[in-house]
Structures are given as structure tokens and as C-alpha cells.
């Protein structure tokens, strides 16, 4: 029977929340096909993540460990996943959508000679002929229904669209993947990763996100948003205009071509809500918008809206929440 392989590319010691959600996706497909789900962890020090993965509802955890996977290039990760794919009979290889997975899974698909779906948000069905999935298209304006019909197929998954399955009582077995020689491409060298210093939760992992647009006028307005974020324990996000202006680092961008998130609460100010921004946050559970312009498109998706100047309203909101918390 052809199975599902969920791939986790490690960027820290443990699994990301998005990896567990991708196991949730993998199980949805596997239940329709009546097959098994395996998890593959890819990194230079994967032991802790493998132990964590073994508690998820998977048959076994494959471990691809190699020095070339520390600051892994897409080519090295492709080689590691392709080697792991030999250790089973996998019809679908999938991973949570991120710049890391978008930087290797299309190479993997070409190496396997199979089709790929990017940013999957729904499983519609799966049988012997096809795996039917749904993904966004046209700047997140529409949904596209597609079918993967290859012998081996590849997908990246919007983790925010799937639930992580509960952990299981018994542990899955852990097996090593045989990797030999160099994994990097001989003509590519990793130079450095300039990490954005994070003093708050990471955007894609946070329950609450406070986000700003052009109306913040940069640091001045973001200072107010950051105070609110710190009170709420929230991550900070930004619109494309803010990042293009250099007010915030590139990886703060929420939107179809930035990060796509679905936190429990998305609170934004001075952000008009361009289509491509809405595509990055419209699945948030509750959306709150503060904007001077009553006609801003962000109000069309907001659960709670306030037409106001953010320079007045945000400090008032912060003060009112702080006061209520101190009183209780």
C-alpha cells in the first residue's frame, strides 16, 4: 500500500506547531486511502524532534541526520528527503508551507517525476486514481480545486487550515535514514543567515497577532502597537507597504506573498486591507480593525471595527485592557 510521508524541516531543536498540523493533513488523506502516515525529520541534530514526533499518530519516524542539514540548502534537503523516500512506498510527500519547504519540495517533485500542489487548504477526496485538494490562487482571491494524479505526489500545506491531531499513548518506532556523501550542490555554498531578532512570539506560531500598515507612519505608530502586543503576549506583523518602506523586516510581512496566518485574534491598525494582505489573515478566528477610513476594505472582513485615528485609539485600547486586568 502506498503511504503518506510528512516531512519536517527542522529550524530549531523541536518540531514546529505547523508540523503537527501537517500530520493532521496527512491523516485526512491517509484515512481516505486506507494507508499509513510516516513522519520524516530533517536536520543536523534531529534527536529531540524525533522523540516528539514519535508521540504523534504516525506509524514510524524517519530521521535524516547530516552535517549538511544544519544550515540546509534546498538542494541538501531535497537529497535527504529523496533518500528517505526510498525507505518506504510513498504516494504523497508533504510538508507545512514555509520558505524552507518552498525552497526544496518542487525540486523533489521534479526528481520523483511527480506533480505538486502548493499551499493546500483542504482535502476533498482521495482514491486509487487521484488525490483531490484545494488551494488558493489569484492573490488568494479564489480557491482552485486540483487533483494530483502521479504515482508519487508532493504537496505543501497551509498549516493554519488543519488541526494538529492529539498525541498518542504509545510511541512510534524511530528509524534512521541512510545518507551517504555530501548533500549540498557542488556549486552552491551557504554564507550566512541573518536572523531577525525576535523579542516576541513568532508570527506563524502566535495565538494573537498585532499588525500595522502604512497608517502607522513607521516606528512612531509601531511603538504603540508593540506596547499593545507586549500586553497581550502577541506577535507583531505588518503589511507589504510597511516592509517595502523598510520600517519592519521582510519576515514580518503578512499576506499572500508573505506569511499566511490564522491566529485566534488578529488586531490591526492603520492597515487598509489590500486583497493580498487579506489573503494572509482572513482565516483568523477573530479580526479587529482600527482605521481612520470607514471605507477601508479591512472592515469587510473585520468582526469588530473602529473608525478612529490609531495614534489615539491604540493607546486608549491598551490602557483600557491594562486597567481591566489590574482591576480583576
Amino acid at each position, binding site marked *: 500500500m502506498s503511504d503518506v510521508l510528512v516531512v519536517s524541516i527542522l*529550524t530549531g531543536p523541536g518540531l514546529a506547531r505547523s508540523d503537527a498540523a501537517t500530520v493532521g493533513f496527512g491523516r485526512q488523506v491517509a484515512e481516505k486511502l486506507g494507508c499509513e502516515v510516516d513522519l520524516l525529520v530533517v536536520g543536523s541534530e534531529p534527536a529531540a524532534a524525533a522523540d516528539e514526533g514519535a508521540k504523534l499518530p504516525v506509524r514510524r519516524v524517519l530521521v535524516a541526520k547530516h552535517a549538511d542539514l544544519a544550515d540546509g*540548502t*534546498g*538542494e541538501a534537503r*531535497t537529497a535527504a528527503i529523496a533518500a528517505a523516500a526510498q525507505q518506504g512506498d510513498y504516494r504523497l510527500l508533504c510538508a507545512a508551507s514555509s*520558505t*524552507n519547504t*518552498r*525552497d*526544496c519540495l*518542487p*525540486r523533489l*517533485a*521534479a526528481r520523483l*517525476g*511527480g*506533480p*505538486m500542489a*502548493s499551499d493546500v487548504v483542504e482535502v476533498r477526496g482521495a482514491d486509487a486514481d*487521484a488525490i483531490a485538494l484545494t*488551494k488558493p*490562487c*489569484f*492573490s*488568494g*482571491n479564489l*480557491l*482552485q*480545486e*486540483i487533483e*494530483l*494524479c*502521479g504515482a508519487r505526489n508532493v504537496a505543501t500545506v497551509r498549516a493554519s487550515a488543519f488541526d494538529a491531531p492529539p498525541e498518542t499513548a504509545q510511541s512510534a518506532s524511530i528509524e534512521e535514514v541512510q545518507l551517504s556523501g555530501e548533500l549540498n550542490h557542488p*556549486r*552552491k555554498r551557504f*554564507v550566512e*543567515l*541573518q536572523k531577525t531578532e525576535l523579542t516576541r512570539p513568532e508570527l*506563524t506560531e502566535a495565538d*494573537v497577532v498585532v499588525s500595522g500598515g502604512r497608517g502607522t507612519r513607521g516606528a512612531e505608530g509601531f511603538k504603540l502597537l508593540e506596547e499593545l502586543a507586549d500586553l497581550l503576549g502577541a506577535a507583531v506583523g505588518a503589511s*507589504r507597504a510597511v516592509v517595502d518602506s523598510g520600517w519592519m523586516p*521582510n*519576515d514580518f510581512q503578512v499576506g499572500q506573498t508573505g506569511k499566511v496566518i490564522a491566529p*485566534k*485574534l488578529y488586531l490591526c491598525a492603520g492597515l487598509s486591507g489590500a486583497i493580498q494582505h487579506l489573503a494572509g489573515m*482572513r482565516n483568523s478566528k*477573530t479580526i*479587529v480593525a*482600527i482605521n481612520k477610513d470607514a471605507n477601508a476594505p479591512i472592515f469587510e472582513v*473585520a*468582526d*469588530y*471595527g*473602529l473608525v478612529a485615528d490609531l495614534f489615539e*485609539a491604540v493607546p*486608549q*485600547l491598551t490602557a*483600557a*485592557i491594562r486597567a*481591566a486586568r489590574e482591576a480583576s
Partner: protein
Amino acid sequence: MKIVATVKRTPQRDTKMRLTDGGGLVTDQIQYEVNPFDELGVEEALVLRDKLGGEVVALAVGPDAVNEQLQTALAMGADRALRVDTDGELDPLQTAHALAGAIEREQPDLVLMGKLAIDSEQGQVTLMLAELLGWPHASFASRVEPAADGSSLRVTCEVDGGLETVDLDLPAVVTTDLRLNQPRYASLPGILKAKKKPSDVIPLAEFELPEAGLRITGYRALPAREKGEMLESAEELAQRLLAKNLV
């Protein structure tokens, strides 16, 4: 340096796509342009050529209509155009095979491509092409610096955790991200000159393609969100969020 910049024909950015009753796309009255991410690739190719010398070839896969976008690339300053001719819909892996066939004939030092096309938003053809060619790649470039002798590139990439820098020995594939450059407009003299630039066509049948593995079966609208509530003051908003246990 010989550079190929690929060009896809996509609906103009911010086009509100509409659906037919049967879940198809309404395609009449749509204006097309060069996929914005590919436009960044054409611009970067021109900058590199002007710095290092060489040639920029604009390459597309598609029907006659795609000539319009190739003309745009020529009007921006590309030296010649090449189109792999097909009326059929190709899936990303098939498109990558068609591009790889054309690129093997051209033997460029560098292929520049948009990180994704704004219609299907798959972002796959780029790396599939690199894999088929056996070349290294750099994704989501926000800066491309060539070595003085033009044999390698230092590429800064926009990744989830920050900015990653890699060195590539050419030939290689580089995909562009939003902040790489500001594409130039085609000037009137540029548009007039473009008509006289060489433009070649290769029939798709000259390349061997795999069977299509990806089928598009339909489109549908996003689920609507319920109309929200407008509040009068920050104080009222705070009370509502507290009452709903949202903060």
C-alpha cells in the same frame, strides 16, 4: 553574461477574477501583463547585462498571445525573445521540461524567474527547472551581486527567519522576490525598437514531455465572513474584547 529571463502571461495585478456558473474562470475582457515577479527578473537581467556585458533572452512557453508579454520584455531592453509554442495547458512539471529544453539549446549562464506566478500561485516551475538542468538555485532573491569575473553570484534571499545569503557558481537559477528592484517602464523608443528585435519560436513537439500529473478541476469563491460590528470608541472595543475573553 548570457541571461535568460522567463516571462509568464498573467492577468493584470488586482484583476478581480470572476467565476462562471460551472466553476470556471470568466476570461473575456481580462487584460494581461508580464507576471510581476517575472518583471523583476527581466529588470535584474538588464542590470546585470549592463554591468557585465552579454545578452538577455526573454523566454516564454505558450500560444501566440504570449508574444505581447515578450514584446514588453524586449521593450524594457531584452535583446531577443524565444517562445516555446503551445496552445495546450501544461502543468508545472511539463512547463519546466519545455523550458529546460529551450535552455539546454541556449546554454545561458543564469536563468532569472519570478518566485511564483500570480495566477496559479504554485511557485514550482522555477525549482523543477533547476532540478531538471542539475543546476543550483537561490529562491526569493532580494539582492544579487555578481563576482567581478562573472563566474559566480552572491544572492541574498528573503526567508522566514530573516535574510539568508548563498554563493552560486554559474550556471544557476535565481528566483526573484518583491524587494529585488524597481522594474523600469518600457520607453516609447524601447517599444519601437522591440518590434525589430529577433524573436524565435520553437514548436513544443521538439521536446519530450511527461504526462500531465496535475489536473485543475474547478474554481470556487472564498467562504464569506459574517458582517462584523462597528464600535464607537476604543473603550467600547476593549470592553467587547474582554467580554468575549479575546484578550
